[in-house]
């Protein structure tokens, strides 16, 4: 079984804390993935108009690259990359007419018909590692950290590419439990953070994100775990402004789930690049003695 890894644009810069912690964790768990060469932008959003095939070329070209290298599976960390690649893959599998048009357009590439399976890192952990093995490898359990999984939109919707059924947050919940954290029930795990709308909203005006954080305040949640750089930006980076406008009552440090996993597995904190998170994220871990244990 060969597993290719697709990083995506943001994970090389603003969200390298998501990538590096994730890769270090896989290494600690003994899983070998190979970053695909010559990957390109997935497009970040899946084209929704019926006649727009040109924007599927980007994600499909990545899938072609994976197929060329003999990969059975293509794993992604970023939720939006996962969604775009998985939907493009589904299109190439099921829509014969569009598949032919796209294949003929990319006539310098091998034909593609959905042969590679696109999976998310969380699915990889469950299917290729297992929660018990992760639990056994934990060196610094995140004891007393009250955390909730935040899936946002693109891990679960639309349903036919979701990593698990609507309303179920089992994968990240099982992971957080395995690394010793206290998972708090949260009613906003799949509420939208406002996504790219933040581009057009003054700081502190993104109510979609504020509402998620407010719900976290009300549920007594200390930290949120996410897998999307866009969610992390919307939820994590404007909390001062939300507080100033009284839209939330307390800070809710946001982490990538890979950072929490890496810390629990004893990976060096430097690899997790907490400086890219809000400063309170690292302070919270220190307050829980998680940094010291690692």
């Amino acid at each position, binding site marked *: 079984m060969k597993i290719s890894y697709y990083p995506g*644009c943001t994970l090389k810069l603003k969200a390298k804390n998501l990538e590096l912690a994730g890769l270090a964790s896989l290494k600690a768990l003994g899983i070998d993935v190979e970053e695909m060469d010559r990957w390109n932008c997935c497009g970040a959003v899946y084209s929704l108009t019926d006649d727009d095939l040109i924007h599927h070329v980007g994600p499909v070209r990545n899938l072609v690259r994976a197929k060329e290298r003999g990969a059975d599976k293509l794993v992604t960390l970023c939720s939006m990359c996962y969604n775009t690649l998985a939907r493009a893959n589904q299109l190439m599998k099921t829509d014969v007419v569009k598949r032919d048009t796209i294949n003929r357009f990319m006539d310098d590439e091998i034909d593609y018909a959905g042969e590679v399976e696109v999976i998310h890192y969380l699915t990889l952990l469950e299917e290729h590692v297992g929660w018990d093995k992760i639990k056994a490898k934990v060196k610094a359990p995140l004891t007393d950290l009250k955390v909730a999984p935040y899936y946002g*939109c693109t891990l679960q919707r639309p349903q036919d590419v979701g990593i698990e059924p609507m309303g179920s947050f089992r994968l990240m919940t099982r992971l957080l439990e395995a690394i010793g954290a206290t998972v708090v029930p949260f009613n906003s795990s799949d509420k939208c953070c406002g996504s790219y709308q933040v581009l057009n909203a003054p700081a502190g005006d993104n109510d979609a994100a504020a509402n998620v954080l407010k719900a976290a305040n009300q549920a007594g949640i200390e930290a949120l775990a996410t897998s999307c750089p*866009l969610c992390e930006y919307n939820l994590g980076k404007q909390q001062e402004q939300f507080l100033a406008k009284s839209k939330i009552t307390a800070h809710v440090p946001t982490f990538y789930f890979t950072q929490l996993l890496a810390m629990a597995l004893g990976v060096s904190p430097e690899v997790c690049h907490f400086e890219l998170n809000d400063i309170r994220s690292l302070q919270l871990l220190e307050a829980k003695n998680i940094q010291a244990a690692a």
Partner: protein
Amino acid sequence: MTLPMNAQNVSVDVSLVSIEKINTLSGENVKLCMQCGTCTAACPMADEMDFFPRKVMHLSQFGMLSRMNDINTYWKCASCHSCSVRCPRGIDIAKVMEALRQLVLRTSKNYIEPSEMPAAQIKELPAIVMVAGFRKLTS
């Protein structure tokens, strides 16, 4: 076509061509909508919208594009698919919103102007925000 509405001779633009355009671009059939409002209830952006998604679906059913020219509803849509996965009629409403955006964007109009964004904001934003946002809001 012009129809008298509410017995007051208020002219509205009902257009079969526009209904067809919306259906063709979205790949959906807006006539399936039964106006239950589940989409509006599920929408995280509804509070900021000029017209709720239910009303936009209703106007789409009559092809009344002129009534939707200046509203922000489809620009505020974050394509989160909360409506699409809940629609009891199985309509992918996110695709209808995309069709309405594209009808404007394909006339070379931008909803936001990247060149007017402050450099400090661009420096701070992750690439993923800009790729996604520019694809949705610019032509």
